[in-house]
C-alpha cells in the first residue's frame, strides 16, 4: 500500500470537513494510506501571511520540517490555500501535491477501473485562483485555461463543459468582511455555469466551496439566481462514481442539496 503524507489544515476540520471525509474515503478505496503529519500547525493562509512576514514563512516551514523529519517525502494538501502556502515556500525534500494532482495520480494507479457508476453529469470544473495560479506553484497546467480536473471528471463518466468562469474569483477571503462583493462574484460564477448548461460545479477549494455553496443560499433566498446549483468537491464526484455512499462523502453536509445528482436519488 502506498503511503502519502497528509496535511488537513483547519478547513478540513471545520467548514470543509466534507473534503476531508471524501478525500480519505477515495484514498481508502484506491488503496492509498494517508498519514497525517503529527503535531501540524496552521499553514499561514489568509490572516497570517498577509499580516506578518515572519509567520508567513515560519508557519509553513514548520509543517514542512515536521513532514521531512517524519519521513514523508510527498504530502497531500487538499485545501487549495494550504497547498499554495506550503508549495510557495521552500520545500526541501518534501513534494506538496494538490487535490487535482492527487486525483490524477490515483486514476493513473488504477482507480479508473473502480469507477463503475457512470454519473452522466454535465460539470463545470471550477479552479478559482489557488488551483490555477502561481506559475511556480500550480505547475503543469495553464493558469489562464486550466485543465487539471478534466481527466478525473471524464473518468467519473461526466462531461467537463467549456465555460467562461473556470478561474474567475469567488470572492475568496472576503466572505465575512465584504459579503456583498462575494455574493456578486459568486453569482457571476453560478450564472456562467448555469448558462453553459451545468448540472453541478466541481471544485477543490474549501473557500470556493463555501462561497458558492453557503452563500448561494442567500442568492436563492433573494431570488438573484433562478434555482439551486449543487457544488461538489472533486473527491466527492469520484467517490460517487466509485459507488461510495453520499453520506460517507459528506454530501449531506452541503448547504445546497446535492444528493439528487446520483441517478435515482439516494
Amino acid at each position, binding site marked *: 500500500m502506498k503511503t502519502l503524507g497528509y496535511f488537513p489544515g483547519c478547513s478540513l476540520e471545520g467548514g470543509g470537513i466534507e473534503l476531508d471525509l471524501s478525500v480519505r474515503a477515495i484514498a481508502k478505496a484506491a488503496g492509498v494510506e494517508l498519514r497525517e503529519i503529527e503535531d501540524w500547525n496552521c499553514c499561514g493562509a489568509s490572516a497570517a501571511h498577509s499580516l506578518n512576514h515572519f509567520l508567513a514563512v515560519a508557519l509553513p516551514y514548520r509543517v514542512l520540517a515536521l513532514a521531512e523529519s517524519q519521513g514523508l517525502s510527498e504530502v497531500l494538501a487538499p485545501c487549495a490555500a494550504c497547498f499554495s502556502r506550503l508549495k510557495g515556500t521552500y520545500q526541501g525534500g518534501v513534494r506538496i501535491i494538490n487535490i487535482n494532482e492527487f486525483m490524477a495520480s490515483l486514476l493513473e494507479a488504477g482507480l479508473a477501473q473502480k469507477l463503475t457508476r457512470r454519473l452522466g453529469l454535465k460539470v463545470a470544473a471550477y479552479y478559482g485562483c489557488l488551483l490555477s495560479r502561481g*506559475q511556480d506553484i500550480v505547475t503543469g497546467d*495553464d493558469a489562464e*485555461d486550466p485543465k487539471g480536473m478534466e481527466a478525473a471528471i471524464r473518468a467519473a463518466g461526466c462531461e467537463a463543459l467549456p465555460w*467562461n468562469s473556470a478561474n474567475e474569483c469567488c470572492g475568496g477571503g472576503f466572505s465575512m468582511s465584504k459579503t456583498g462583493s462575494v455574493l456578486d462574484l459568486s453569482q457571476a460564477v453560478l450564472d456562467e455555469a448555469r448558462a453553459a448548461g451545468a448540472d453541478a460545479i466541481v471544485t477543490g477549494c474549501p473557500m470556493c466551496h463555501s462561497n458558492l455553496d453557503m452563500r448561494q443560499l442567500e442568492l436563492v433566498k433573494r431570488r438573484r439566481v433562478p434555482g439551486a446549483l449543487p457544488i461538489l468537491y472533486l473527491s466527492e464526484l469520484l467517490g460517487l462514481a466509485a459507488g461510495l455512499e453520499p453520506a460517507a462523502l459528506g454530501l449531506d453536509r452541503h448547504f445546497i442539496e446535492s444528493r439528487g445528482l446520483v441517478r435515482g436519488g439516494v
Partner: protein
Amino acid sequence: MARIGVFICHCGENIGRTVDCAAVSAAAAKMPGVVVGVDYKYMCSDPGQQMIRKAIIEQKLTGVVVGACSPRMHERTFRAAAAEAGLNPYLLEMANLREHCSWVHSNQAEATQKAIDLVRVMVAKVRRNRALRPIRVPVEPTALVVGGGIAGIQAALDIAAGGKKVVLVESGPSIGGHMARLSETFPTLDCSQCILTPRMVEAASHPNITLMTYSEVASVEGFVGNFTVTIRRKARYVDPAKCTGCGDCFNKCPIKKIPNEFDAGLGQRRAIYVPFPQAVPNKPVIDAAHCTMLQKGKCGLCAKVCPRGAIDYQDQDRLEKVKVGAVVLATGFQLWDHAAYGEYGGGRLRDVIDGFAFERLASASGPTGGLIKRPSDGKEPQTVVFLQCCGSRDDKVGKKYCSKICCMYTAKHAMLYRHKVYEGRAVVFYMDVRAAGKGYEEFVRRAIEADGAEYVRGRVSRITRRRDGKLVVRGADTLAGRPVTIEADLVVLADAVVPRPGSEKLAQLFGVGYDQDGFYSEAHPKLRPVETAAAGVFLAGACQAPKDIPETVSQASAAAAKVLGLFAKPELEREPVIARVNRTTCAHCRACISACPYGAAKDFDIVDRAGKVLRAVADVNEGLCQGCGTCASVCRSHSVDLDGFTDEQIHAELNAL
C-alpha cells in the same frame, strides 16, 4: 637579418597625453632587429605614411610595427602604405597603444612602460612574419534569392537590373509573399496589390531572373563565389509549359472546402488551385494531401476537363542543381499562434482573429469582397477590439522582443474599419505606441483624431464568449486606473512576428547563425547589417528581425548592392589569414574537421601518380576558411597552423613579455 622599423603615433593627444611617445620610440630603437624608431603626431596622415614608405625604401626594412590605434581602425591604411613602398603588407603589424593602453590608463610612467612592452611583443612577432598573398577565388556571377516575398522580389530585381543573373526560389505556388495578402499599406494607405503585382510580373518576365516556385533549397555545397545549391522542385502535377491558366480545372474540382491559407482560412479553395487570382505564375498546383485522385485514385476530373492535357498525376519531386556565387536569404516571417493564450480563448473563439485575417476581410480581393464581416455568423461587427503586443514583449508566454510592425498595422486596421463601418467603434488596447518612422506618428494620430479610434492603454486579461455571441473583453485602463469591460463583436490580435517554420534548418544549410528566436544573425548589428558570418550569404527582410515594407525593401536593395559588389570582379580577393595543414605530420584524427564551424576543414587523399590513395589527411578549403583558428587549437599533433597567427608567432609574443 631582420631590419624592423617602429613608428609610434601620438594620435594627437589621444596617446601622447598618457604615453611618453618619444621614450617609447627611443626604447624601441634599441630592441633587437630594430633599425628605425621614430614617433610622430599623426602617423595615419599623409606625412606620417610618407615617413613609413620612405624608411621602408631607404632602410630596406623587412618588417614594420606601427604603435598607434586598434588594427580594426587603421591596419588596412598602414598595410596599403607598406605595399606602396614595395613591402609585403602582411609584414606590417600594429601595436595597439590607444584602446589597449592610453585610453584605459592614467599613470604616465606605467602607461609608457606598458606601451614599450606592447611594442616589444609586436617586434618579436613581426620578425617571424611571412609574406602572404591574398587568396583569389573565381566568382560565378549568378545570385540565388531564397524567398519570393517583397524582400526576395526586390533583391532579385535589383541584381537583375545590375546585369547579373538571378535564380529566385519560392516555396509556395506563387511569389508575392505576405504583401500580396495585405489590404492597404501604412502610412499612405495605398493598395498593397496595386504596388506589388507589377513587380511580381516584372520579376517573372525579367530575362535575367529564373523563377522557381513551389521549390525549396535541399542542400548546399561550396563557398563564396562558388556555391552549388540543390533545389527541390516539388511536384505540381500540372505541367507549367502546357498550362495556359484557363482555370477549367479548379472550377470543376469537386474538393471545395479546403481552408485557403492565403485568406488566413477565412475563404476556401479547391484541391487544384492557384492561391489567388493575381498569382505569378498564374498556373495551378494540386494539393496532394487533399486530392482524392492522388490519395485514392478516384476522380481525375481535372485531367478530363483540361483542354491542354497539362495534368500529370505521375509528377514527382525533382532535384535541380544551380551554380551561384552569392545568396540572399529572404524567407520572411509568419504570425505567432495565439492559441498559447488561454485567456484569449486559446485559439477556439472564431471571432478572435489575427492581423492577417483582418487584412483579408478588409481586402477588396478577400473572401468578403472587402466588407468587414465576422467569421462566426457573417454579421458586420459594430464594435471591434484590437489588442497590440499579443505574444510580443511577453517572455512568460510569448516572445521578449517588440514585433515592431503591429503598432502601425493596428492603427491602419482601426482606420480601415472606421472607413468601412461609419457607426462602428474601434477600441485599441496598447502597451506603448511605437510609431517611429517617416509619417508614422502622424498616421497614428490620424487614426485617433480623424478616424476616432479609441486608444486604451492597458492589457486585456480575458476574452470570453457570451451566449448571444458577444465577446466580453475585460482589461485594465492603466491611465485611468480602472478595469474596463467592452462588449465586442470581433477581436483582432496583433500576434508577434516570428520566423518561418524551417528557417533554422535553412540557416544550417548555409552556415548562417540565428538567435534564440530563430531570426537570422547579421555579421555586425550596425556596420554589416545585411551580411552574415557566412561569406557570400546576405539577408533581406523579416527573416532577420521584424520589419515593415519600407525597411524590408531598403534591406533587399542593400543586399542586392552587396551581391553586385561581389560580382563586380571576376575573382574574389580574400585576406590570407587562413588555416594550413602540415600534411607530413597530420595523423588524420579528424578533430579539426568536426570542430570547424564553417565546414572548411575536410578530408583529403594523398595519391601517387597512378591515382592510388597513399594516405588520408585533413585539408582546409581556402574559400570557406574564416581564419578563426579553432582547428589549430584542437589539433593534437600541432599540424594545423593559422597563417599570420602561427604558434611560433604567438609564443614569440608571449616570450617577449
